[in-house]
């Protein structure tokens, strides 16, 4: 892999307009990645998802040179219909179209900021890989006191024209004081067997509100890793919702630092998996100052050789008195071929806190099935009704009504 990495790295930047200082800086990330390699199950974080092995068996050797210069065509069928929104369209990692038609032009800024990379130098090997190969470092800034009028949908398309087996994408968001942004990520793949590595970095200033909905429901054979870092200042709020279902493998990692008083973070997720899919959600919510709050709810429904993993950590530093942290994970195993792994973790260094977690996994409740059947529904209907109800609970945590309904209709959940 090492040779390929070096070769593809050079190819990627031989014609770029980055100066040599910047390229050298990227090279450091590359070297770090070469040293560490793809993560495998020897690392605690990857205990239940041996990425290096999965990539080896599913894809084989990776190539990294992704020629994104030729433009792709966009057609209107790519967009979500019946719902007004701004959009950014990525096709095979190239930003094809940015359309912020519903927003005031001087309130939103899109720029490139190379320096930002420095802030992410010690996160993990995949972020290093990302930093080594991402050419552009977009920053979307929402100016003080401005709230996005309509949601921003980021479309992540891939198709068969993709040039390499590895695709890296990085986006930064800065929400200035008293702003709000609703962001929907739609993963839509027509490519096969690629490793897609995404890194989002959010900075929420005082009173900012971020709602991020990540939707992966289209069946595809790609392997995905997404790292989301959220820095939160005083009284800010983040809501992250993950619908994880379509890809062959997908690991969503959310790291949230509650740096300011009264900041709060919500992470809710659904892992609905079949056909040998293997998905993971790993969170670490770090309460670093007083009076912060976090809430996590993750539910999984598994059938046909699927495997779901939830690793959730609540960390409370000794300065973070009056923390309120809660975490719950539940899984329904519909078949013996499925597997659920959980590692709900608490690490606490302050005494005046309220923290708890719960985890439950197993079969559907037989008594509930009996109750429903005694009202005239057959076994299959009873089962579907219960699963529907089981998942609805998470969907109902979505605070934006319009988006809630959108997602409901996407997965065919009934109320």
């Amino acid at each position, binding site marked *: 892999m090492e040779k390929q990495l070096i070769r593809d790295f050079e190819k990627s930047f031989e014609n770029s307009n980055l100066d040599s200082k910047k390229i050298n800086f990227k090279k450091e990330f590359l070297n770090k990645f070469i040293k560490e390699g793809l993560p495998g199950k020897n690392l605690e974080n990857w205990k239940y998802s041996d990425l290096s092995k999965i990539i080896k068996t599913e894809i084989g050797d990776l190539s990294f040179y992704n020629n994104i210069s030729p433009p792709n065509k966009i057609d209107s069928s790519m967009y979500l219909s019946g719902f007004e929104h701004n959009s950014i369209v990525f096709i095979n990692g190239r930003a094809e179209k940015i359309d912020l038609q519903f927003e005031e032009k001087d309130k939103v800024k899109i720029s490139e900021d190379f320096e930002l990379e420095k802030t992410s130098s010690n996160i993990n090997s995949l972020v290093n890989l990302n930093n080594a190969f991402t050419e552009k470092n977009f920053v979307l800034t929402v100016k003080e006191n401005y709230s996005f009028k309509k949601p921003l949908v980021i479309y992540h398309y891939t198709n068969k024209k993709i040039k390499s087996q590895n695709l890296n994408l990085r986006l930064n968001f800065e929400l200035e004081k008293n702003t709000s942004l609703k962001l929907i990520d739609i993963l839509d793949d027509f490519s096969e067997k690629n490793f897609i590595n995404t890194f989002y970095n959010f900075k929420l200033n005082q009173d900012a509100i971020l709602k991020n909905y990540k939707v992966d429901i289209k069946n595809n054979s790609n392997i995905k890793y997404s790292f989301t870092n959220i820095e939160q200042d005083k009284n800010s709020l983040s809501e992250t919702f993950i619908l994880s279902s379509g890809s062959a493998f997908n690991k969503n990692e959310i790291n949230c630092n509650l740096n300011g008083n009264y900041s709060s973070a919500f992470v809710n997720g659904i892992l609905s998996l079949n056909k040998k899919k293997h998905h993971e959600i790993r969170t670490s919510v770090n309460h670093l100052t007083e009076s912060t709050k976090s809430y996590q709810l993750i539910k999984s429904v598994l059938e046909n050789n699927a495997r779901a993993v939830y690793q959730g950590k609540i960390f409370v530093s000794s300065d973070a008195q009056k923390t309120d942290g809660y975490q719950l994970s539940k899984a329904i195993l519909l078949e013996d071929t499925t597997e*659920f792994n959980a590692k709900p973790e608490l690490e*606490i260094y302050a*005494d005046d806190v*309220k923290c708890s977690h719960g985890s439950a*996994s197993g079969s559907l409740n037989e008594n509930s099935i009996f109750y429903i059947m005694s009202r005239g529904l057959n076994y299959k209907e009873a089962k579907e009704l219960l699963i529907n109800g089981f998942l609805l609970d998470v969907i109902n945590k979505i605070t934006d009504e319009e988006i809630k309904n959108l997602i409901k209709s996407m997965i065919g959940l009934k109320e």
Partner: protein
Amino acid sequence: MKTESSQNSREKEIEKLKKYKYGFSTDIENTKAPKGLNEEVIRFISNIKKEPKWLLDWRLKAYQRLKVLKEPNWQKPKYPKINYQDLYYYSAPKSFKEKPKSLDELDPKLLETYKKLGIPLQEQKRLNNIAVDAVFDSVSVATTFKDKLTEKGIIFCSISEAIQKHPELVKKYLGSVIPLTDHFFATLNSAVFTDGSFVYVPPGVRCPMELSTYFRINASDTGQFERTLIIADKGSYVSYLEGCTAPMRDENQLHAANVELIALDDAEIKYSTVQNWYPGDKDGKGGIYNFVTKRGLCKGINSKISWTQVETGSAITWKYPSCILKGDNSIGEFYSIAITNNHQKADTGTKMIHLGKNTKSKIISKGISAGFSDMTYRGLVDISKKADNSRNYTQCDSLLMGNKCGAHTVPYITNKNSGSNLAHEATTSKISEEQLHYCQQRGLNSEEAVGLIVNGFCKEVLQQLPMEFAVEAQKLVGISLEGSVG
């Protein structure tokens, strides 16, 4: 507000209690193997114990394996490197070259030691209905109530004696639950273990009394590597207690025991521990490194193994008493109270491996951290594909006293069976001002109030202990936390 006099008396009380109650050492001449870990020392140990060849070979095999194993490093508490060549692996009171035939032959100094520890070995003062096997440094010094047990066919003796008298049982079961190659400390123990207890309960026999071992580390620079093997044959029942203390020393002492339990069809083993090794002084100097491997195998159908532990001592504790639920319908339980204060560190929990059908496990863990200490619950529950209709219930609660200490909960949960259910709950809390105020309003001082509340917090676990131990454990819980409330 506290009045001055209560403040003074409290401080005096604390001063008194800060001193580890069992921190004296006994001045007895010892026979020691030369310092260091090598084949010679292993041969020396095996030779002095007149062991059969198979056991020497077994030890040497473990030693070979040890050379390639690394010390584990995934636990949270780290410790300074141990120089294994600078330890004594065998130490026995000189008067013990030939084991005394009766208690009258025991060195009076030893008897005195056990008296100070509250473990009377002499006939007239025997504890009510508890048979005791006392282990001093590396060797078993006395076993009480032997006759009464022999009547029922129960074997309760030191493992050295069992090797001589019941080699077929030892050979069959030794290492059958904790394999030679398991991990560094377990393998170290297999190479150099010196003594420990052995219990065999024949089919259908309900052991009429509690069996107990009392461990004491006395000699300095000595590792204690005892080995316990308990076999409950079909339809039998036994309850076993373990207690331990060590003198105060500035250096850290290593304790790496292996305990193996085997329950055959319809058998039940209850294993209780009150661990009160020297925890080090209030600045974290000295204390025992308690790196213990305890594992039970529910081998037969309908068998049951229940672990109860009250862990208050040691500078560093790593232990995960586990159950392998192999037999259909077998049950595993783990009840734990772990308390750390000052600079103590504990990383403890359990493993429940469900292999058989209809297997059940229950984990109740209560962790309390105070001072500058650090406490980790680490547990694993694994329900395998074939373990139809299995159940696990886990509850882990932590209590923090102050914000200089830490509580860490790390459960690993795996479910591969769609007909099995697994539930885990964990909370972290503190003693509320309201609770304290309420108790104080009813006339308790703050130490008493905390003791009361903490004992309430631990109640579910304390209830699991045999009566004779429960009272002692309750006191211990109070003492361990003295000085931690302001």
